[in-house]
């Protein structure tokens, strides 16, 4: 810049209009610019799948120091070839989000607020509630005397957003183990 003769830039501009940017004067780089790089350098890449719709786009999750620093489309995936939709591109905000609940919360009957509880407390209490409800609702036979072995006063909903393994365990535990019949997910709807 300093060596730039007065108004010489407009000479360049004239060249520009003739389809050539022309030689540009050296640019005054700052310290940061000189060392410009992406934050992905040195990051760990984990290949993943987008959790939104059923297209099944491949994602790359970049982590550093145990934190997610970037999520983008996996260019190797034959389904999305690195591209994403706005929701997929938002995957980072889905994972890193101040609105995410990070503790177990409990609402007592008729209460107007949440209480924070420990995981252990919640698991124990839920297990108890399941057992109580099952004891109350288990039917070995129908009124017509047909075999039921079913629990009809409890249910579960959800699964289309979960992993296959999770669905498998839900069905196995709740149906195969406890005899709960109303196990459902978004797929019906």
């Amino acid at each position, binding site marked *: 810049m300093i060596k730039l003769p007065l108004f010489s830039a407009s000479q360049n501009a004239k060249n520009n209009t003739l389809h050539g940017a022309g030689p540009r004067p050296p640019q005054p780089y700052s310290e940061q610019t000189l060392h410009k790089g992406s934050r992905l350098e040195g990051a760990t890449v984990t290949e993943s799948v987008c959790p939104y719709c059923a297209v099944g786009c491949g994602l790359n999750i970049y982590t550093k120091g145990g934190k997610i620093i970037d999520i983008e489309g996996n260019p190797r995936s034959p389904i999305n070839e690195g591209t994403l939709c706005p929701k997929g591109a938002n995957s980072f905000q889905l994972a890193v989000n101040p609105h995410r609940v990070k503790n177990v919360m409990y609402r007592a009957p008729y209460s107007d607020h949440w209480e924070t509880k420990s995981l252990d407390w919640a698991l124990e209490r839920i297990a108890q509630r399941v057992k109580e409800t099952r004891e109350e609702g288990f039917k070995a036979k129908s009124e017509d005397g047909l075999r039921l072995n079913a629990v009809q006063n409890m249910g579960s909903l959800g699964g289309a957003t979960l992993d296959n393994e999770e669905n498998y365990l839900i069905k196995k535990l709740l149906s195969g183990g*406890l005899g709960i019949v109303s196990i*459902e997910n978004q797929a019906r709807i």
Partner: protein
Amino acid sequence: MPGLGASFGRGAATSFQQDLANSDCILIMGSNMAEAHPVGFRWPMKAKEKGAKLIHVDPRFTRTSALCDLFVGIRAGSDIAFLGGLINYVLTNEKWFKDYVLAYTNASTIVAEGFQDTEELEGVFSGYDPQKQEYDASKGHWGYEGAGGDKPKQDQGVEGAGGAAEGGEQKSQQGSKGVHGYGLMGGASSHSTPQSESTAAPAGQPPRDPTLQDPRCAMQYLRRHYARYTPEMVTQTCGCTVEQFLEVAQLLCDNSGPERTTALVYAVGWTQHTTGVQIIRAAGILQMLLGNMGRPGGGIMAMRGHASIQGSTDVPTLYDLLPGYLPQPAADKGHEDLASYVKYEGMPTGYWANFRKFIVSLLKAWYGEAATPENDFCFSWLPRIDDDYSQLLFFNKMAKGEVKGYFLFGQNPGGGGPNARLHRAGLRNLDWLVVADWFETESAVFWKNDPTAPPSSEIKTEVFFIPAASATAKEGSFTNTQRLLQWHDKAVDPEGDCRSDLWFVYNLGKRIKQLYADSTDPKDDPIKHLTWDYDHDEPPRLPDGSLSRIEGEPNASKVLQEINGYNLKEIDSRTGKPKLLSGFSECKEDGSTACGCWIYSGVFPEPDRNRARERKITDNPVQPEWGFAWPHNRRMMYNRASADPQGRPWSERKKYIWWDEEKKKWVGNDEPDFEPDKPPSYRPAPDCKGMDAISGAEPFIMKPDGRAWLFAPGGTKDGPFPAHYEAGESPVRNLLYPKYQASPTTRYFEGPLNPIAHTPESEYPIVATTFRLTEHYLSGPMSRFNSWLNELQPEMFAELSPELAEERGIEHGGWMTISSPRGSIEARAMVTRRIKPLTIDGRIVHQIGLPFHWAFAGETVGGNANDLTSLTADPNVSMHEGKAFVCEVRPGRTGTPAQPTKKVAPWPTREDSPDTPKSAQPEGHLK
């Protein structure tokens, strides 16, 4: 997706998204693909670049329409009329693909005597019981000729029910306690329907008339059934012009045949109707006639909504299914013991002849050592269903206080359930509720933030909110819309007390087992003996090599291995554990194999080989080494049909799988969806069983007759042919069958919380349809807590035409109120010419479009379109009707607007990336 199951044998998208790029024409209908599946739309766009024609038929001009060559606007809920018109056009103009139709469909099969079509009975098929409002397929003689009860060919015979095909139907009669849904068949689930095939189809070859002249052959019925679906009738019913309709018909016909293929793409725009299954059936019939099934660039692509919605039906969290589309045993269906269950649900011919192997392997996977041949492999432990326990009906019960406890895993019925008010009333009437989710969704805060609910002090529900780990913080597999299993690794540990649902279910299971450990009650045997050991052998590590801090996390790979299956008799020397199965063909019926979900078998063939996790790119365009597609990694189903009956490609251009005479096997880029070495010339002997009964020229191996079903002798509860009925709520009379306004088998659950406007002359003259925006996701749990998405679509709006806006005095951008019989919501008015008033039967009918993404929890809140939808169920799958209902609109707001429950978080985080110099930090932290 029983529509596909009934037509072709498996209820899943028949092809893979990338294959759409090979199409010459794509009809997108009942789907707003560019908006709901933008990345999937990449492939139609590639086809378009290569010169393919894209057609969009939809009630609204959407972003999809903008990119298509042709847009035809129709009235929501008139799809069967349109498709029926196309079928009629193809038949009357003799544009159907004769060689294909004759060889690969049941066009020539003779239908049982006594069957009567809607043309004969003025709007219903034979077998209709007006009292019960349902069909009895057996009384209606929906079966094939010669397969009837009087002539049993199924030598297994079925428990005094007359045996054979129509005897099988008797089963459904027996099991039909006013509800849908036992078993795979009958379209009980929204998935595969092989069972009904056994109920309806005969063993051996049914009588056929290859000349198609017999008046009782399927083709003749088809012609008569659709004869009145003329272009004029289509126009009057749908509201499009004759020219538009003919242009579509012309394009489809011009782009089908040996040299060219047309693909169909649909989504919930077809399924969320009381006639949804039949709409998809109609599409199936069209594609059969045009010869587009099982061929590259053809097929029917179902675009499904959730990351693993296909997986959650394959490995079902569904009340009427066991893994792998085995039916949940039913109390009244003769499922008393394993033998009778297999007798009822298995099939003599086709692939379902292996039924017993799959159920026994499942029982071994669940009950382990306890399951022995002597005790019927504990078959009696499985709970029996005696009613419809689907979401809609169960919430209806819940709202009446009949349900005590409930789990929600990443689903938000309080926001997204049809008639969400009723769903919230259900939640308020529970004793306890467990919500495992990421954010405080409507279903988590219904007791404090619902502006339409009573105060917290009157709501009894005890609520446990379990913070779920995000997909990035857990490992497991998703099955996408093209049946592709893709494993995702865990990238980081979940924060705080967030845990995967796998962790929660596993550890809850452990606690429950502890609670029952000392029980001697036989009812507790299943839980005591349930195999439940998925602990990691070594402490798990994160991808960067560090140890995970989460205690008690189960090993998801072990779960997938159990799903894949083991040979219990063989020990793998590498692991010292039972050897993994290499595919479902290894399943045994003697209890020597355990397999959690037979159709997924082969996904984990070796201890260190998780094929869902494999991501190898090859020069094979099908990319068979990227993930694992069920069944057996076949990317395109029914691909035997890509070759002619002699096994040669129909054309060089559409070559996919063909018979290699030298190698004596089927070759091509994909796994053949056929026995790999069965020659095209193979013809079964009359007494053949199982797969041996399928000839070398019959590609639809899940069907007992190996053929696609133009006429569906079973598999649906509302008729063998699709017929146009108006939606449960419609302001228009049924022009085709004036005697039957809506489908005669529609189930309404009327009550104070769910009033229905049946008559066309109700005070709700406007047709409403719901839709999805690219920028949001479902009822919003995964988008309305995300400021980057909220800013793109910050408010609930309704799309309406300038004409309607002027009529009602509604201003663009201003507030409007939309009312249905279920209630009122407010929205901003998006007055747009993209919505057009339609001329139906000589009068103007207005439509409005409602995105269904908003409710009362999150950073952005607003009117909930699902507070307007109703609990109305189709007979096959209890699917509600969200895509067509009636409403009225007026300017102004409702009285009770919701307030955001979360303050906007513009930045997800402003923390610097760890271990990164300043020059490489994100530019936008603005610090």
